């Protein structure tokens, strides 16, 4: 057994710094590169892409990246784990194989985790009265009808660990939890038993610290952002994991950024609910047991994490179409910028009412005055410019579309000193809403396929 392994997090979301994964591999020792591509909204985008072209539906950036990493992977120095397979992990693997062939590279194994996609099973599940009730409202899934666009079970670390046991050097999954990507190599390398809840919780906490990339290493750092060195070359986080469950959070040598108690604490608290019950498919972690210690510069030790048994259900994330929205902006300059923007808002609302358009919501913000903090903001003195930002949302496409034609006329028919309309009129876009549900674990079975090129 290895005395420790180093796991680096190369993407906090799809669209994160493109150079980060390569920097992690090149600037210091690394055993595993993990990459989370899937925010809630991403799965629905990828399902739409797959519907248009059955060979697509995965994070396409992954293919050239994996090909670039193949020399390190083939040499046995590096393994890569990612949920960038999205709605089509097999398609992603085939694209990687094809690109590798064109580059004359072979002699490596790719594991794929399938079975998280419930869309093909919806009729069967509902016929057996698996209601997939909305966790927030209690409504049954039948109310959505054909508006459902994606439905994915969150798998944990176990299917990934199994793919590694079967020899995979690259593991491509669909909806695997962010934390599971990081926990999996620990489970595999250190042979942690399934019911060792404390160590699973320790690996889960490490995964939570890593899952948003550089948010653990000085990015978006509220305590003292000026103190973070060289944000332009920020190092993404590395978890140095030990068989007993202790983890040291660090970053590669020579990179920018900061790993301190404060940066790690901010990320630990990010997007959590009750800290005593952080629920994943792998365990329930208790964040109130975590002990942190700064053991050296850019090295924070995480220990003493306690965990409870995993629950009997998987979480399911579903996305459905919920109407249309459009958002437009116009910028008003000094003098009386805010007053003019407020007057323009009243004019638009009057015209929309005169037209008899129907919306679920019309929302106005004054960027530069109060958009972020609403009534808590106290603009001081006279503002030099204010951006009027109006959005509408509703079920009627034609009404939302018509709203988009009511902003530009303000340039010639409203208050003076207005600009910022070069981008064209706001177009309606689909509103995608979320439907969280639970499904008994016995209903879903991950399928693992490992193949070599």
């Amino acid at each position, binding site marked *: 057994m290895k005395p420790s392994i180093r796991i680096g997090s190369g993407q906090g979301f799809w669209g994160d710094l493109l150079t980060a994964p390569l920097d992690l591999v090149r600037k210091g020792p690394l055993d595993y590169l993990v990459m989370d591509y899937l925010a*809630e*909204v991403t799965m629905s985008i990828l399902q739409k892409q797959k519907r248009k072209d059955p060979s697509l539906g995965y994070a396409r950036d992954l293919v050239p990246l994996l090909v670039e990493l193949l020399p390190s992977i083939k040499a046995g120095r590096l393994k890569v784990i990612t949920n960038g397979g999205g709605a089509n992990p097999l398609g992603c693997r085939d694209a990687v194989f094809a690109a590798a062939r064109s580059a004359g590279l072979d002699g490596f194994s790719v594991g794929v985790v399938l079975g998280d996609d419930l869309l093909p099973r919806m009729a069967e599940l509902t016929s057996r009265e698996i209601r997939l009730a909305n966790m*927030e409202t209690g409504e049954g899934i039948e109310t959505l009808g054909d508006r459902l666009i994606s439905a994915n079970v969150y798998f944990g670390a176990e299917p990934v660990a199994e793919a590694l046991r079967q020899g995979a050097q690259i593991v491509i999954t669909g909806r695997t939890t962010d934390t599971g990507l990081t926990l999996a190599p620990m489970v595999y390398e250190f042979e942690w038993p399934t019911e060792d809840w404390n160590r699973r919780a320790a690996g889960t906490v490490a995964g939570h610290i890593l899952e948003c990339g550089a*948010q653990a290493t000085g990015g*978006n750092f*509220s*305590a*003292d952002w000026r103190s973070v060195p060289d944000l332009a070359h920020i190092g993404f986080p590395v978890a140095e994991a030990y068989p007993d469950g202790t983890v040291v959070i660090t970053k590669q040598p020579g990179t920018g950024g900061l790993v301190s108690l*404060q940066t790690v*604490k*901010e*990320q*630990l*608290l*990010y*997007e*959590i*609910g*009750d*800290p*005593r019950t952080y629920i994943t498919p792998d365990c329930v972690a208790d*964040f*109130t*047991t*975590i*002990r*942190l210690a700064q053991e050296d510069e850019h090295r924070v030790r995480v220990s003493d994490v306690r965990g409870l048994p995993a629950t009997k259900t998987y979480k399911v994330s579903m996305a459905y179409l*919920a109407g249309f*929205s459009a*958002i437009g902006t116009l910028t008003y300059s000094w003098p009386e910028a805010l007053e003019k923007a407020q007057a323009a808002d009243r004019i638009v609302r009057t015209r929309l009412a005169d037209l008899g358009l129907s919306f679920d*919501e019309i*929302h106005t*913000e004054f*960027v530069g005055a109060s*958009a*972020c*903090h*609403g*009534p*808590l903001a106290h603009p001081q003195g006279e503002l030099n410019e204010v951006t009027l*930002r109006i*959005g*509408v*949302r509703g079920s009627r496409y034609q009404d939302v579309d018509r709203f988009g034609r009511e902003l530009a006329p303000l340039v010639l028919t409203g208050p003076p000193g207005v600009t910022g309309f070069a981008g064209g009129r706001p177009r309606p876009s689909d*509103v*995608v*809403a*979320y439907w*969280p549900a639970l499904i008994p674990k016995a209903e879903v079975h991950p399928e693992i396929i490992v193949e070599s090129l």
Partner: protein
Amino acid sequence: MIVRLLDIAHARSGDKGDSANIGVIARRPAYYPILVRELTPERVRAHFGEMVRGEVERFELPNLGALNFLLHGALGGGGTVTLRLDAQGKTLAAALLRMELDIPERLL
């Protein structure tokens, strides 16, 4: 004396459905009891006023010198439905740090 929460704590916020979470961390261990005493869920709810439609829940993490708040109904329908510029509540942490607290000087 009057201090801003910003002076004794730092914070990060994000979204969980239509709820926002704000993690508030004491800048020094000695400030944690002040946070526990002063930052009651009722006070946080009142601070945000109409910006938060539902309840405010508070959780304590003494091991990190931190509190976690869940602000229900704070995001105008949730990350992808809301029309707000700050769709995911990323700036709500700073909005909370605006709060003013009256603290005995010996505690600072």
